[in-house]
């Protein structure tokens, strides 16, 4: 079993890798890179200034990993190391030297249209980009991580201390993050900053922010709390002190230095609303609980009265639910919910802080999957009803309710157990429609938004998250099934 599990996990990792690579290739080779600027306001404004436009374009492409870009200054500085006589002036000698250098190193020499200074670009081939994506993905923090030329005698250590800002914590020095492991009042109470996922930088929507932060960070208005800083001052601030990161001495402001007393002054903010992943996860899990909570009893009821009126009515209902398009279904229930129960028909009406915003999208998400659950559970239950053990139980004198609850359901539940992790995932990832219609700021809505905005890094990140979650859920489903039913042996040929 252990051996099977190991290989299974390895295979799962391989398929995650393959899916991500395939998606990466599709996005970065099929989506025209020009399309990035389609809805960019900044880009439109620069159309009158060709030099700045070229600079903006190339910087954007280099941020997204399409090209490597040396602007005039960097190009001249680099070439100067080999040819000290070169300068940035657009003269014939300079051009010759630069041309030689660029040809040797595989770059393309270009000129700005107006001021005629030179710059160079180099296309990054797709395999190299894929390699970079994976190479940068896992960021592991260690005491030799930060190399700051302005701070040469920094101590490098990891020790457990009672920090005045964070309480008891594993505090690092020389690390990227100050608090490597810390405790706070939020689930799961113990947090780490040692391993981080780096999925690139978002562009053009959420421009400049880390993709991980866009998906996993808070949203909405910033949340201020009383914070006592290192210099003893207490003020209302929205900084998340646990996220203190090393700030290069050259960029460190005097105020930051006073507030924190050291270089760890770069912080994230606290936000009032949960992250995209958080919103999708909450709605998804509750929707699944709801779907099974209603679906299982209904299916059991239908199976017990197979072929009679309750069963026929149920089948009729399920047929309608299956065949009506989800879009029409969602609108119909949204209409009912807002008319009869006075619930908001759009998420932002009351915002993420109000429970009323969640009710309709969650309930509808649950109802969408209910017909499938009913069909299959009814099928399993009916298949079990003719089994020998049921006849035996009947002969022993158990009534049909007892048999259905205690015997049939236990056996019918085995395939259901396998499905539950997948449904949770399905609810999270499949919420694209409900989240779009209700304008809920979750991951499901983010996927079409990001594709439409040509935000390739975010698309990649969402695909990566979805795939990881999907592959894991299949694995957990199989393990859960093997746990519930001891007859099932996942590994081939015994243990």
């Amino acid at each position: 079993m252990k051996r099977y599990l190991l290989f299974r996990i390895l295979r799962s990792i391989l398929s995650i890798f393959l899916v991500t690579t395939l998606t990466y290739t599709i996005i970065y080779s099929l989506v025209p890179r020009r399309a990035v600027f389609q809805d960019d306001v900044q880009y439109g404004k620069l159309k009158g200034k060709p030099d700045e436009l070229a600079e903006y374009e190339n910087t954007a492409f280099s941020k997204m990993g399409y090209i490597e870009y040396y602007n005039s200054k960097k190009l001249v500085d680099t070439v100067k190391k080999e040819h000290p006589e070169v300068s940035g002036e657009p003269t014939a000698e300079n051009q010759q030297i630069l041309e030689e250098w660029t040809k040797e190193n595989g770059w393309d020499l270009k000129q700005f249209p107006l001021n005629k200074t030179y710059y160079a670009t180099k296309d990054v081939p797709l395999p190299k980009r894929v390699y970079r994506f994976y190479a940068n993905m896992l960021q592991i923090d260690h005491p030799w991580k930060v190399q700051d030329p302005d701070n040469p005698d920094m101590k490098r250590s990891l020790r457990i201390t009672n920090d005045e800002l964070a309480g008891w914590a594993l505090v690092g020095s020389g690390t990227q993050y100050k608090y490597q492991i810390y405790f706070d009042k939020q689930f799961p109470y113990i947090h780490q900053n040692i391993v981080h996922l780096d999925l690139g930088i978002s562009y053009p929507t959420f421009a400049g922010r880390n993709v991980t932060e866009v998906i996993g960070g808070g949203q909405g208005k910033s949340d201020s709390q009383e914070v006592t800083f290192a210099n003893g001052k207490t003020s209302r601030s929205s900084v998340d002190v646990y996220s203190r990161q090393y700030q290069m001495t050259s960029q460190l402001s005097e105020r930051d230095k006073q507030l924190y007393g050291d270089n760890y002054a770069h912080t994230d903010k606290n936000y009032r609303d949960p992250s995209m992943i958080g919103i999708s996860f909450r709605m998804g899990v509750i929707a699944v609980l709801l779907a099974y909570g209603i679906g299982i009893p209904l299916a059991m009821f239908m199976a017990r009265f197979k072929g009679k009126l309750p069963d026929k009515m149920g089948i009729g209902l399920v047929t309608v639910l299956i065949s009506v398009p989800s879009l029409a279904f969602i609108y119909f229930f949204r209409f009912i919910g807002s008319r009869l129960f006075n619930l908001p028909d759009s998420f932002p009406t009351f915002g993420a802080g109000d429970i009323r915003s969640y009710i309709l999208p969650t309930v509808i998400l649950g109802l969408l999957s209910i017909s499938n659950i009913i069909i299959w559970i009814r099928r399993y239950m009916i298949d079990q009803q003719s089994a020998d053990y049921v006849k035996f139980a009947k002969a022993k004198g158990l009534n049909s309710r007892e048999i259905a609850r205690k015997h049939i359901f236990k056996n019918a539940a085995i395939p259901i157990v396998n499905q539950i992790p997948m449904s949770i995932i399905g609810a999270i990832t499949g919420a694209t429609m409900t989240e779009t219609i209700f304008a809920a700021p979750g991951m499901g809505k983010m996927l079409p938004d990001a594709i439409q905005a040509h935000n390739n890094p975010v698309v990649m990140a969402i695909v990566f998250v979805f795939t990881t979650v999907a592959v894991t859920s299949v694995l957990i489903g199989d393990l859960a099934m093997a746990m519930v039913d001891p007859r099932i042996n996942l590994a081939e040929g015994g243990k």
Partner: protein
Amino acid sequence: METSEKKINDGFTFVSTDSLTSEKIDTPTYSYWRSVGRKFFSSKVAIAMLILMVAILLMAFIQPMFSGYDFMNVDDINDFSKRYNPPSMQEWFGTDKNGMSLFDAVWAGAKTSISISVLATLITTVIGVVVGAIWGTSKKIDRVMLEVYNVITNVPQLLIIMVLSYTFGSGFWNLIFAMCVTGWLNTAYFIRVQVMIMRDREYNLASKTLGTPSMRMIVRNILPYLTSIIVTNVSQSLPAFISYETFLSFLGVGLSADVPSLGKLISEYTNNMSNYPYLFWIPVTVLALVSVSLYIVGQTLADAADPRTHM
């Protein structure tokens, strides 16, 4: 002896042998399609749905030919008397903000939506059944195809469709291509499982030992058993494709701007839900009717297509 014979003949008469009648009381003639038809038409719901489906199909494919409806036509936009007319005898489904008749719009949209789902279902089913049948019989192909399936089904289909519509542009045929390019894999996987269940039955083992080539085994021994399963799959995928096209149009990808579809109408009239509700609810109702009738007719046909129910 004579008395006993008389006793036996009491109440009985001798009949001459009639070879013609004896033929008739032999096993009744069985025609597969006639039995399918009889079984199908014994369900009242199915007949009602069939009539509804035919009516909708005829309306969707004939009405747009006469109405001359053009999705991009805004001739009447300045004629205030034509705008937002509620349903009446003149304008059956009312008019929208451009003064266009919703009746024309709905049928033109239904034509596109139905065409897309029928074509996409046809393509995915044909490819899916052919590939799935081979996939299910060959264990070597199975090993490779399983990994291909695992990888491709994990790439969000929405992403593939959206990216393809960016690269090849949006339009009717491009959307069908984008839907089919990964869609066939799911049908193939479904057929693979069904074929595998049939593959190792005794009669196939017997057939194998008699030296039947595998192509013949698939076509003659296995596929006929799967008729009802394939029809069920078709009846489920028709509404699924309609639903999917609606969703894509709602997101604004897939079809180009000048092609009307039910999804596009729904997404366009979403804003009118509170002030002019008929604009929104009529396309939704038509969409629901199309899907429900297609699904129920398909399901009943699938039941009827199963020879085990003919007895």
